[in-house]
Every structure is written in C-alpha cells, then in structure tokens.
C-alpha cells in the first residue's frame, strides 16, 4: 500500500511542479551503511535543487 501511495503522490507532486522532493526506500535496521548512503544522496539532491518554493511562498503570506 505504501509503495502504491508513494508512487501516486510522487507523480501528483510532479504535476504540481515539485518533482523529485519525495523519496521512498526500504532500509532494514541492519543496513546502516545503506541508510547513510541514501540519506546523503537525497540530501545532496535536495541541496542542489534549492529550498522548497512552497516554504518561500508561505513565509511571504504570513
């Protein structure tokens, strides 16, 4: 069910113009190495994309 929902939300966010800011990965508690690798890569990816435009927008309003 999770993978179904995530696959859907990823596509919906793409339609909204927020592509690539959501990621799903199965990582077991025994896979510390994988956890570090995935989180690092995702962080780098997000940093490259820059801050979420949504945040800038809500701050503008309030």
């Amino acid at each position, binding site marked *: *069910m999770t*993978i*179904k*929902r995530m*696959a*859907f*939300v*990823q*596509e*919906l966010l*793409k*339609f*909204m*113009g*927020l*592509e*690539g800011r959501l*990621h*799903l*990965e*199965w990582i077991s508690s025994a896979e510390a190495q994988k956890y570090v690798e*995935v989180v690092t*890569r*995702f962080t780098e*990816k997000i940093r490259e994309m820059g801050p979420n*435009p*949504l945040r800038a*927008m*809500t701050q503008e309003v309030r």
Partner: protein
Amino acid sequence: MDIINEARQLLVQEKVDIFLGYRELDGHLIPHGYTRDNLDELEGLCVSQNRYPLEKTATHLAKKDPDLKIGLVARDCNQRTLNVLYTWNQLDPEHIKTIGVNCCPSPFKDHGDCTYLAPKTTGEYKKEHGIDFNAAPDLLLDSMTNPERFSRWMYEFNKCLKCYGCRNICPVCFCRECSLEHEGLIEPGALPAEVPIFHLVRATHMAGRCIDCGLCEDACPAHIPLRLLYREANEIVSGIFDFQPGMGVEKSPFSIIGDKIEAELKPLDA
C-alpha cells in the same frame, strides 16, 4: 416508454420507494424525490442540461434507511458514480434502479458523454496567468517547467474561498469525517485555504474514485481548474495501476491492502 411512465411503474409496482429526478422551479430544474403518495407530481418529472449529484442524495437516504429502494434518472456519469459507490459499499445495487437518460447534449455528439461537452471559455487574463480549463494534463506537463507549473497551480489555489463547494457537490465524497474539516490539517477560519494542502488532500482522495463528472469545476466560484487536477490524478492511477474508476465494480487499487503489485521503487537519481 417515456421516463414519466417508467418511473410511475417502478413506484406503483413497489420496485422503488422513492424516485429521484428533477422538476422545474422558476425555469431551472432542481432535484426532486417522487414518492408513491404523490404520484400526480410525476407529470413534472423532466431532465435537461442541469445536473445535480442525485446519487449523493441516494447515499444520504441509504444512510438513514439502508432498506429503502431508490430509483433515479441516470446519465453516463451517474452510472459511473453508482459503480464507485457500490464498490465502496455506500449503496446496495439490489436497492437501486436506474432509468437511463441521454448524456448532456453537445455540439460534438448528439448523445455525447460529458467529456465531449462544449469546452468552457477561458478568458485572456486566465490564459496568461492561470491554467486553461481545457488544457490536457499531459500538455501542461510537457509545455511547462517545474517552477512554471508550481507558480501556476499556486495562483489557482490561492483564489480558493474555502466554500467547500467542490466537496459538497462531489457525488463520490461520502466520508463521515472529512479530513478537510480536521483542525490539525486545515486551519479553521484561515484564508486562503492552506495552500496547497487543501487541494492536494482532495486530489489525493479523488485518486481511484473521481469519475470525471465535472460538477466540482462547475460549482467552483473561483474558477479553479479542479477537473483538470483530478483528471491528472486519475491518469496517474490508470498509468500505474491500469484502473479506471466507475467503469466496473472492480475495487480501487487504494482500497486493497496486502495485495502483491509489480511496482518498483523510483530510483533516487531519476
């Protein structure tokens, strides 16, 4: 046989207890429930381009009295809705009788499905700053970059008056408790309505459920292209799960827990 006689027979033969159709009031057709006690009223039963979610009324009636037998006039979109309501156990197909009527007339097709209805006119300002009602979802995806799509949708959502009209008219919205009224999710009294959460929550709930009747967009006083948004939501669903809401009594992919699917995780670098 015309619909008046058909409806009368259903009532007289006790196949239905109430028949939902339309009657004219001040030149506009409004929904009306015809019963055995007022058979004379049936003379006023008619249909036109005016549409209301009669199935929603049926759902409310069935909630009060699950054994009530309900008849209603049904276009294509009503039939699709009924299928959705059957699969979600909101209505019992045994208790529902429909009389098929022609779909909304359209310049493209005499008995056209509503998807073929005359396109809504999109004003110059909206064309420049907003989202064209008649744009196809994939066209929007192909012709605009991510930041462009983002600002367009934010422009549309910011117009929301939070009237809840889209939810109230929606024939497949039936939850007893609505997330859109949850204080923790949507701040009460705040305008515009929690952009974009309000609209994305609704879009998510429309996945695998919306039958593209377009009533939400007709009802929206702020002219937000909701139909386009929900249409894309369901194009995603049919793309990933090969599921079309309302086409049969198959269950939505989001209502089945624990079934095996072939989906793969999206790679991080995509």
